[in-house]
């Protein structure tokens, strides 16, 4: 395990990301709502470059059994990463795949020191 300075905080704006190479691995570092998240650029489905996908919202369905009303809400805008190859959706804050809850992409620890973003791997 070692620390790697990947950028100055000013280099990643809210809702943006950078791709870096650390120890021969491509890593995506995201900044969202004041938090940093780092993942390998490797999708659990077929190994696609998921860190390069679009950040969007997603549908959440709600059903009221007594009225039988069925509602779709568009939620988590900017927080859902869609793998560019086949569109598997992941929650960037947790790494969890929305259609397969047992799939969770491992996150690398990220911290900020003296204005620098440091990823540990």
């Amino acid at each position: 395990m070692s620390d790697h300075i990947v950028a100055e905080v000013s280099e990643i704006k809210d809702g943006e990301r950078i791709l870096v190479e650390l120890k021969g691995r491509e890593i995506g570092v995201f900044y969202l709502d004041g938090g940093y998240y780092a993942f390998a650029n490797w999708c659990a489905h077929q190994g696609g470059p998921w860190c390069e996908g679009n950040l969007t919202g997603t549908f959440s369905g709600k059903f009221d059994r007594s009225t039988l009303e069925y509602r779709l809400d568009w939620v988590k805008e900017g927080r859902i990463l869609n793998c560019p190859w086949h569109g598997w959706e992941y929650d960037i804050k947790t790494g969890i795949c929305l259609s397969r809850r047992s799939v969770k992409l491992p996150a690398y620890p990220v911290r900020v020191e003296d204005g620098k973003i440091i990823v540990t791997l």
Partner: protein
Amino acid sequence: MSSERSLSLKKSTIIDVDVHLQIKPAEVAEYIEEPYRSIMTKSHIGNPLPDSGWDRSMAGKIERRQVQGPEDIHQKLCEEFHINHPIINAFGKLGKASMTKLAVSLMKGYNDLVLEKYLDGYDHFYGLISVATQDPEAAAEEIYRVGDEKQFVGVFMDNTGPNPPLGDPRYDVVYRAAEDKGLPISYHAYDSGFIVDFPRQNAALETFFSVHVLTHPYAHMLTMTSLFEHGVPEKFPGLKFIFLEGGVTWLPYMMYRLNKIHSIRRFDAPMLKKTPEEYIRDQFYVSTQPIGEPNNQDDMRKIMEVIGYDRMMFSSDYPHFDFDHPEGLEKFLRVNVPAKDRKRVLETNARGVYGI
């Protein structure tokens, strides 16, 4: 059947989850009100429920088998086939009846008839409630009307003909009623409905061979896909779904294809909180007949292991032309699977699902 051959069958308890009645229009007419009664008896075309006219008999080459009345079921199925409990459906082709009011009237008529003629005098018989999906509110009311009858153990839906397909939210009222009453849903397709759902293919195919090969899997695939599109198993987690007369081998294909496309297009089916496979392994079942026939029998064992012995229930479909004799399946299971799994398929899965 020789006594030696039937020995093992006699020792097993067998529940047959797909036993059809052949109810003539004049017979059900006695259970319905005017003017529908007269429509059933005075129609110029014989039976007002549409039929596509395909010849099942191959110009009379296979014998015509009929089961007429409860005593016949008892004799032919319970005595000769060693079926302990037949689960009877009226086999009314309600999904395609052209008048909604006629369908609703027939629905009640079939249920009263089944209750009076088949269930009341025969404690070892069970029945499924027919519903007319043309009028989901009336169908739900019917489930509440007869759902407490002890021998009615499920709801029977004709799934060739209903439009939109049966996952549409308009049917939620029916699913809620079934869940309220603790009754599972059994889907059953009809070859005569192929002409409604797939008219272009029906016009293009030359033989009943093609129509029959495709009707049941097409209908079940459409129904199952529609259920997942609208999240029905998520909306009604207490509900069980049984797919009759499609055999078992179509299930793995659909399970994995639904998984695949849902993972890509969750956007289109966002009600689902789990993979389709998880719902299927929890809430879905298939009946065994007509059991697929691989050239290498061991292939069937492998497929059944993939499906899981907790998902399958025995059915004979007697007296139809592609019925499965219980002895054939019992023997296959006896040779190929552990006794506890054989018992699940022949008996205990159905007990659990239908509450018998």
